């Protein structure tokens, strides 16, 4: 249970994990999100009627405007702005390091919750959601679509992928950028435990292609605080050599290094106009998303994307 939402402990990551059904999870998260007063940050990209065109074989029957048919006895289909200017790509890191969990929910599972919740939000706005899953390479890529089935596909894809250690993130981002045909909102959900310059290079590529990039830097609370005491053997998830040490003695140095990394990453994102947010996996996803949307809205309303405290 978190201190921020004491009454919503049913949204704790551990409880969401027990739900199993990702669509249900996403709905729960989004429902929890609506309890607040925040508006969707993607509202500016909402769909609007553009014009009619004559029906052609192959068009979806449900897009036929039956009122026009009643008046003119001709088949016309409705065309919307949304279909042409808003896609949301969810880039989920499924590398080995994302499997770390100090408690029951791993970073990868938490990333799944976030991705599903975001997809749910986007889809309820009738926008399209695409998905890319990567580790050492791009494991899966779903082009944007507007059906809720993508949430199930997220779950299925992540379940089937065997995590592989990742040495670089830029390459994968480059590859994904190539696969994206239109300018989109790209949400990168990753622990970004890699070289900062490499990460920034990948993000820069996305920005260069005109995408609006959001980084949800997903980290375990233990990675943030390093609360270990006594002798610990740290076995690297990315095939690093294990390190046995007195954790309490090295905590200060760890935090110093980590802070240095975080500062560099944060400054880099700000410089590249990448919207950055640290996600603590011990917090409920709805709270994280609420905070995210609040800041996103503030940005849209005037603040520059990189002007984060």
């Amino acid at each position, binding site marked *: 249970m978190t201190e921020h939402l004491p009454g919503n402990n049913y949204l704790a990551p551990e409880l969401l994990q027990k739900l199993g059904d990702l669509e249900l999870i996403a709905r729960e998260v989004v429902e929890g999100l609506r309890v607040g007063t925040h508006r969707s940050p993607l509202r500016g990209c909402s769909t609007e009627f553009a014009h009619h065109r004559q029906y052609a074989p192959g068009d979806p029957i449900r897009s036929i405007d039956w009122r026009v048919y009643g008046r003119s006895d001709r088949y016309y289909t409705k065309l919307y702005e949304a279909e042409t200017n808003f896609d949301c790509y969810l880039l989920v890191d499924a590398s*080995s*390091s*994302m*499997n*770390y969990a100090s408690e029951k929910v791993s*970073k990868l599972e938490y990333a799944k919750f976030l991705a599903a919740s975001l997809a749910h939000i986007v889809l309820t706005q009738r926008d399209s959601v695409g998905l890319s899953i990567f580790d050492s390479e791009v494991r899966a890529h779903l082009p944007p679509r507007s059906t809720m089935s993508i949430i199930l596909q997220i779950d299925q894809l992540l379940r089937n992928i065997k995590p592989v250690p990742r040495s670089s993130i830029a390459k994968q981002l480059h590859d994904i950028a190539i696969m994206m045909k239109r300018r989109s909102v790209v949400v990168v959900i990753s*622990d970004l*435990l*890699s070289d900062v310059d490499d990460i920034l290079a990948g993000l820069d590529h996305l920005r260069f292609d005109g995408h609006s990039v959001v980084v949800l*830097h997903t980290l*375990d*609370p233990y*990675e*943030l*605080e390093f609360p*270990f005491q*006594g*002798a*610990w*053997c*740290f*076995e*690297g*998830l*990315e095939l*690093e*050599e294990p*390190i*046995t*040490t*007195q954790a309490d*003695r*090295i905590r*200060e*140095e*760890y*935090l*110093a*290094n*980590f*802070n240095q*990394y*975080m500062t560099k990453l*944060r400054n880099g994102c700000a410089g590249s106009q990448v919207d*950055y*947010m*640290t*996600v*603590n996996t011990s*917090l409920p996803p709805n709270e*994280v998303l609420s*905070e995210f949307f609040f*800041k996103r809205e503030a940005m849209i309303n005037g603040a520059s994307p990189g002007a*984060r*405290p």
Partner: protein
Amino acid sequence: MTFLHPLILLASLGISLPILAHLLNRHQVQHTPWAAMQFLNRNVRVRSRQIRLRDLILLLMRCAALLLLVLALARPAWQGSIANWFPGESRAGVVIGIDASFSMAHGDKDQTRFRRALGQVAVIAKNIQPGDPVSVVLLGGENKVLARNMAFDQNRFSDLIETAKIVPAGLDLDRVPGQLKELADDMEALNKEIYFVTDIQARDWNESSTKFQSALADLGESGQVFLAPVPGIDGNLAMTELELVSGVLRKGAVGRYQATVKNYGTDPVTNVEVQCRVEGVQIDTKTIPIIAAGASETVSLFVPFHNSGPTRITAEITGDLLPTDNIRRVVAVVRDRVSVLCVDGTDGTAGRLLMAALLARSDGSTDENFQVKSIPWLSLPSEPLEEIDVVILADVPEITEQQTKQLSQYVRQGNGLVWFAGKNVKANIWNERSASNSQPLLPAKLGLPVDVSTGNGAGRPLDPSMPDHPLCLPLRSLPEDLFSETRFLTRLDSEIPSSSFPILKLAGSGDPILLEHSLGRGQVFMFTTSAETSWNNMALTPVFPMLMQQMVTYLAGREFEPSQTVGDSLSLAYEEQPDASDAVFDSPSDELITVPVREHRKQFVALLENAREAGFYEARVSVQAPGLPIAVNIDSEESNVSSLTTPELNQNLDSTNIIVAPSEAELASAIQANRTQKSSWRQFMLIGLILLIAESFFADRLQKRKQLKGPTDNSNLGGQDG
């Protein structure tokens, strides 16, 4: 390698604790998968190795420090050639026994045996390391322990040795091994050395018992024994005796004292001058022309008593290498006059014979300072006893209870009573009256007359073997045929308690004729035969006057007269329960010794357990009271100062592993040769402590370095970041 306290080594198991802690710490390593290895990779890998190395170094330092401290406490020592490979010092616990008997004072002033003994002690001290345990005992008399397990310090030790003085007593050689062993066993040292510095008096060593020999051998089990002999030349004269042989101790009379001088040397000594002093004033000097080697010579010293009261008399020789035994002391209690009252229970015969024997003057003339008076027994109640020194009751049939109390009180005050049996004596009445007091008046319970004549009707003579009693002195000088003329036909049977003892007995039967016991400060003599001639012919022989005069002399001047020997107990008897609870004894060196008064055998006595000095003590019933002098002399047996020869000494020590070092050089050499063990506990302790301090410093430094880096501000790490 040997250890003084091997059990302490068990504490070395304690090093398992830091090792165990270290191992447990290692085994308690928890494993976790970790994603953010990149923040560990750059720094922690090196650091982890460093920590491991530092932990190992700290662990080793702790273990080594603990091990070294345990080893140090166990007091290790290296033996043999291995000792050369390790640091250490030649250490030993040292027990020094110094012969301080007065024979050690023999020699020239600056070269006495004792001085040479102290020289040997100085050699021993040079080889003692500071801090080593040292015990020093002065052997002689009661043996005085000067130091017990004292941590050696040269200055303190020198000061201590300077206080060592010769005691005016002999050496009890049989007690020496036990005393030294007790000190050695009481000492905590891995290597023990026992030194015995003595003049190896032949008198002691030749008469040493097998028990002494075995004790000496046992002493070797407690440590290495060194004997440092300081023998000297043999020549020594000693004043061995000074005794009153005749005369009455009263004012105006002259006492004849007999002084005996013995030559303990191997050469005859000529012209030995004997000086007699009374109260420090020389009054007589005699010269003994020659004293053969090993022989004794006596001279008579005539002492005129000009004043009454206790009189200190000394006889002294000079020009001797051992002054301690050149002087002999006695105290004579001189009375203003001596008055004897004979109470005659016969028809006057006994009184007449007693007066004749005491006065011993054929012309019947009298001496105003020596009065003898005879009265019939019925006149006793009217006779004042305050003026009488000795009362003689001869064949008195009976006395009243009041007379019994009067006579008891009279004797308790320090006067004398002589009692003769006879045919008129009513034994049952005497027994009843005598026993009516807390302590019986007479020395024995009376029985019936017994015929002690031999088979042919002749009387039985006195036993010529007599105890060493002042009364017997003149009788011993009588020719044997004259002595045996005294015959006894009848005696009164007697039941003798343990508090009385016989002085004269009959030859053959051993029946007691003369008994003595003490009553307060006085004495009671009891003849079991008659004073007149019906039961014996004693009154007609020279024995009677000699015996009676000696008895009066003894009784009239006995108080505090007997000389004591150093080590004896000195007693002060009271007439009745004293007001003060303590008596005071002034020693010859003017030391004031307070002694509590105790009741002993229904008498009040102050007993000074051990007279440590030779000279005149003074006993006082209180600090203000006049002193009663007591002469204390040395035991002249110690005067035989001849030492063992080297072969004799070797023969004596044949069965032991005692190292004999006659000279200072030999002693120093023997110590060095024997001290092969090296003690390393100080080094171990020092290194252990240094390691401990270094470990603490190292650990503290690591801690401080960690603190100096200060806490990292990670307040923004727990939540979201924009």
